[in-house]
């Protein structure tokens, strides 16, 4: 048997919906080329076959929500040369980070018949809060072209071409009409990082902020614009507190305008 010299890829899951790692399987046209260029050594969603580490590239999905997660992510970091987190859960805590704004014990008692069996941390946190991360790929879910770009950049030893400016640049490049200006539709595009190709504004919907804050997000100014347009503080809080509720400044802006957090 000849030695396989292809870089070894591992895909790991923490608290998440699997949608981001599914994006890799979604790369149907490119998947064979990926499998040619790299050895998919550990990817339980794709194959039962698992090759032991260490790994050249680990893609990590999901947030840290249990004491066991805390141990496991350190083990994974230890056997990964490059570690890239993928998706809003891994980069910002995900939708489950909403619990960071509530009392976990209180609603565990409501949700579970036997909360004593549940062993979770009080907060859902991104991977980078616990181990060094080489690159964070945003999105809920990640964009498969961007995922390929990151894998590709890693294989070719170059920085990934993943912009961190606002969705508005992509929106205008695709010649979409601004939904805020032309329709009065609240849109998170101006404060959200590009990467999706401005899908929602392209279909005359406001941006939901799936890719988290852009590099210089003026969330308070946008919040004020919505309040002037007649939205309530609770509505402002709700739009900032979705998939990226754990990412600053979405976190603090949402909290500031949430009537339940004031006083």
């Amino acid at each position, binding site marked *: 048997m000849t030695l396989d010299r292809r870089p070894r890829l591992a895909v790991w899951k923490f608290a998440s919906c699997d949608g981001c790692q599914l994006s890799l399987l979604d790369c149907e046209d*490119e998947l064979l*080329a*990926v499998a*040619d*260029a790299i050895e998919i050594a550990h990817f339980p969603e794709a194959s039962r076959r698992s090759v032991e580490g260490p790994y050249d590239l680990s893609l990590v999905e999901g947030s840290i929500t249990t004491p066991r997660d805390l141990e496991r992510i350190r083990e994974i970091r230890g056997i990964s040369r490059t570690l890239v987190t993928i998706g809003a859960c891994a980069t910002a805590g995900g939708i489950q980070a909403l619990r960071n704004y509530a009392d976990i014990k209180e609603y565990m008692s409501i949700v579970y018949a036997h909360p004593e069996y549940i062993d979770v941390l009080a907060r859902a946190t991104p991977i980078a809060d616990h181990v060094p991360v080489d690159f964070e790929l945003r999105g809920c879910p990640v964009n498969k072209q961007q995922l*390929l*770009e990151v*894998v*590709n*950049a890693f*294989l*070719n030893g*170059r920085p990934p*071409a993943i*912009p*961190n*400016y*606002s969705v*508005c*640049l992509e929106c*205008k*490049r*695709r*010649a*979409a*009409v*601004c939904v*805020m*200006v*032309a*329709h*009065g539709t609240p*849109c998170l*595009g*101006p*404060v959200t990082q590009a990467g999706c190709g401005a899908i929602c504004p392209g279909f*005359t919907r406001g941006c939901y902020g799936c890719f988290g804050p*852009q*590099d*210089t*997000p*003026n969330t308070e*100014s*946008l919040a004020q*614009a919505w309040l002037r347009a007649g939205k309530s503080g609770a509505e402002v809080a709700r739009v900032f507190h979705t998939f990226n509720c754990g990412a600053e400044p979405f976190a603090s802006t949402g909290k500031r305008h949430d009537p339940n957090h004031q006083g």
Partner: protein
Amino acid sequence: MENRFLITLEGLGALLAELKGMGRTLIGPVVRDGAIVYDEITGLRDLPAGWGDVQEAGRYRLEKRDDGALFAYNSSPMAWKRFLHPPALTLWKARRRDDGFRIESEAQAPPLHAFIGVRACDLRAIAIQDRVLMEDRFRDPHYAARRRDVFILAAQCAQAGNTCFCASMDSGPRATQGFDLALTELLHPEHRFLLEVGSEAGGRLLSRVPHQVAGEADWAAALQATENARAQMGRHVDTRNIKTLLYGNAEHPRWEETAQRCLACANCTMVCPTCFCTAIEDHTDLEGSEARRVRHWDSCFTSQFSHIHGGVVRAGIASRYRQWLTHKLASWQDQFGTLGCVGCGRCISWCPEGIDITEELAVIRAQDQNGAGEDA
């Protein structure tokens, strides 16, 4: 030589059909998603008959008109630069070979365009981009190839929007050059168009459709239409000594105040008809045997735009807004010999926060820190 002619609505339809018959792709105004944008049109029936718009800072709404006018709308969210200076363009590809690599040009023959309904402000903007992208030390061959054979049918403005200020920038409302043909839409007593010929190509095209020489009354009506637009101009800028005014107010507190509002979203630069900045991205295939260089629109409002060795030069929003506005109206003059603003008002209408460049300039002038804007 007669230079002013009249054509009917049907005549305009015939003129568009002639252009199309010459193998040109017609780009003109169409209603889409609640705005009048420029897109491919097949002929007269695609034009926004009976549609106008109302614009304010950060607000745009279509409005139905009862007169069936085709060109009674104001600035479009889209600038013509999209078709001359595309938002994304693959410049070249490189293929790895045993002895190195080979570069393959990606340049394809650009589409042969005819622009229908270009406003005076946008004609000036195109002239400014000509200067920047073709007439400087470095000539952009992609822009030049698209620009060379474009046919321009201008549309004189008969009204102005609330965010318009072309009269202040001396770029309108009446277009006097830079077109092949310029139409003024006249609605009374019957729907017709006064056409001015601006080039041989324009004259040749007109000769192929039914037309008649315009009378003095028609010409007076056309001039009056432009005067109506001038009177309706919604915004104003005092451009006296504007270069020294801005250079002398680099530390004005207004920059920080506006930065509280500015979203750094880059919409103003995307809609600006003169903003030309681009970024380069390199992509590779998975095996590393092929590389591709892509150019796309960039903006001075992004942090990466000013990233150089050691970090980002313009980390804060105030420095980015100051850079943009000062470049448009001051350093643009040093660099290219003209103002970089044509008064189309797009940056005002399409700023989600409604920041108004004319208001910013007025405040800086009113609170001039060093008397920099005063006459020497």
